[in-house]
């Protein structure tokens, strides 16, 4: 399946901060066919560093999508039955308007003049895209991590537009620990002199800061078990310690590699804006309780967490489930056993796919 990215342009979007962004573009890919009743559409939502290329082989890069093991013919999101859409988030750097886009007022990239955005703003732009498709109701919205937060936001903000929601390894609000790790990443970027208050476009990129930020991120996506299994204390290309500060251990090599790769594909300012949006995310939004905040939700929910995920621990998913039960919502929940930490929803997908397939199938039958 060779897939191509498309872009739609809208005149403007009004943000939670009160600011307006005009125009705004959104990059998306689709897989499968929309049926005549437009009742088989599923919006898949990417995590922090993902993009619109969720499945298939990219025409442009030749690479598989970030959830290619979940989306395709016969897979969890079965493209023989469903029409799957994935778009790059607002503030991103993979085709959708973000801090690296040209500000029409100045003719230069927005950089730090880009307005601060929220998860709600990302979802608002996705809803504009779904309206543009003319899809009255999505069969499902689903994603892991930040994508899961969007799946929850969709169910609360546009309850009449989603039949079901599948938030995976997600939370209704960022915890102190989650904010803390994001802040370390932001400080690493802003401490890099090449960051230059965000004005590095066309110049030396703040690669050192961004790669350190990504290294920290990768640690939080794995688990002690998975790192022990993958690296242990193995040395990289040497028999003995180098007695210096070049790479000794495999794990150092891996993190440096992942960090440097990231610099080639991700914009440091997008890192700042998107992590801030995640940190601001709190579905409770000043209401008395989470259950009160979930009052508008009408969707059927499938919530999944992973036993070794210490970045978005199971207790956060369980909190969401309890609040939904208190509202007597239709909610299924399981904690899957996996060693892969927060990354489990991307890499350890066999059981997740079976559940998603069954859940979607029974949901689809109900709307037929």
């Amino acid at each position, binding site marked *: 399946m060779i897939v191509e990215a498309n872009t739609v342009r809208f005149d403007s979007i009004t943000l939670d901060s009160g600011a307006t962004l005009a125009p705004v573009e959104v990059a998306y890919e689709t897989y499968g066919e929309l049926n005549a009743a437009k009742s088989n559409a599923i919006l898949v939502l990417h995590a922090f560093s993902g993009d619109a290329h969720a499945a298939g082989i990219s025409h442009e890069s030749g690479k598989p999508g970030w959830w290619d093991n979940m989306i395709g013919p016969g897979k969890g999101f079965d493209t023989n039955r469903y029409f799957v859409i994935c778009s790059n988030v607002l503030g991103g750097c993979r085709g959708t308007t973000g801090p690296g886009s040209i500000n029409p007022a100045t003719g230069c990239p927005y950089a730090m003049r880009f307005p601060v955005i929220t998860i709600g703003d990302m979802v608002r732009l996705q809803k504009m895209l779904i309206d543009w498709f003319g899809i009255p109701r999505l069969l499902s919205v689903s994603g892991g991590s930040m994508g899961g937060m969007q799946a929850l936001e969709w169910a609360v903000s546009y309850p009449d537009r989603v039949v079901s929601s599948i938030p995976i390894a997600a939370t209704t609000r960022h915890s102190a620990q989650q904010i803390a790790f994001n802040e370390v990443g932001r400080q690493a970027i802003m401490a890099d002199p090449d960051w230059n208050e965000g004005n590095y476009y066309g110049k030396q990129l703040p690669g050192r800061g961004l790669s350190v930020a990504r290294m920290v991120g990768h640690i939080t996506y794995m688990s002690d078990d998975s790192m022990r299994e993958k690296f242990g204390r193995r040395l990289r290309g040497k028999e003995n310690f180098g007695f210096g500060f070049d790479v000794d251990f495999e794990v150092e090599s891996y993190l440096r590699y992942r960090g440097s790769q990231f610099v080639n594909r991700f914009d440091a300012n997008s890192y700042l804006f998107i992590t801030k949006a995640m940190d601001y995310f709190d579905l409770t939004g000043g209401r008395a309780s989470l259950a009160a905040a979930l009052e508008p939700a009408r969707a059927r929910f499938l919530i999944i967490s992973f036993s070794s995920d210490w970045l978005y621990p199971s207790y956060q998913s369980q909190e969401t489930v309890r609040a939904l*039960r208190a509202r*007597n919502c239709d*909610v*299924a929940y399981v904690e899957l056993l996996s060693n892969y930490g927060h990354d489990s929803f991307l890499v350890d997908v066999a059981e997740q796919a079976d559940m998603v397939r069954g859940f979607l*199938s029974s949901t689809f*039958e109900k709307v037929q």
Partner: protein
Amino acid sequence: MTAQTAKKQAFVRELLGRSDYAIISEIVEPGTKVLDLGCGEGELLEWLAANKGVQGRGVEISGVKVQHAIGRGVSVYQGDIDEGLADYPDQAFDYVILSQTLQETLYPRHVLQEMLRVGRRVIVAFPNFGHWTVRYSMLKSGRAPRTKLFPYEWYESPNIHFLTVQDFEELVALEGLVIERRYFLSGKSKVTLLPNLRAEVAVYLVRR
């Protein structure tokens, strides 16, 4: 009544290999909301949804069973019955089902109270510890009884609260509850005479 029709009436068919499921499936009215506690892989809920248009939810402690239940399209929550009922609002369900699990809960009386807070009616099925084979096994061996119904060694048994038909009736009276229907089963047959001695499984429909 001829002997033949009497025999026919005494016969209880099985549903999904279980006679208590057959009875529960007859009790549950179509189009109702049902919560099944300890629902396993959700077979009963799936059957009730497909055949009676029931809106079903389940609670199950085993993660693997929950995975399978969700995979067959049933909304199941992985959790503990003893504490898991607390989240639900009052009278959220038409029926709350507890099949062959009451004797495994830590606080059966509290579970029964919670079930009646959450549901208008409860359906409880449990193995009868008063069955004559159990009494005989204990009398003869002088040890914790092991029978077809209770096959476990005492140290491996999931059953931590043994109860008889009479015990359950007394708890229901103590709680001031109303028994709408009661069924007693031995194998695939209904028992009418001396249920506390002859029933292997009892099924009750109870309300406040």
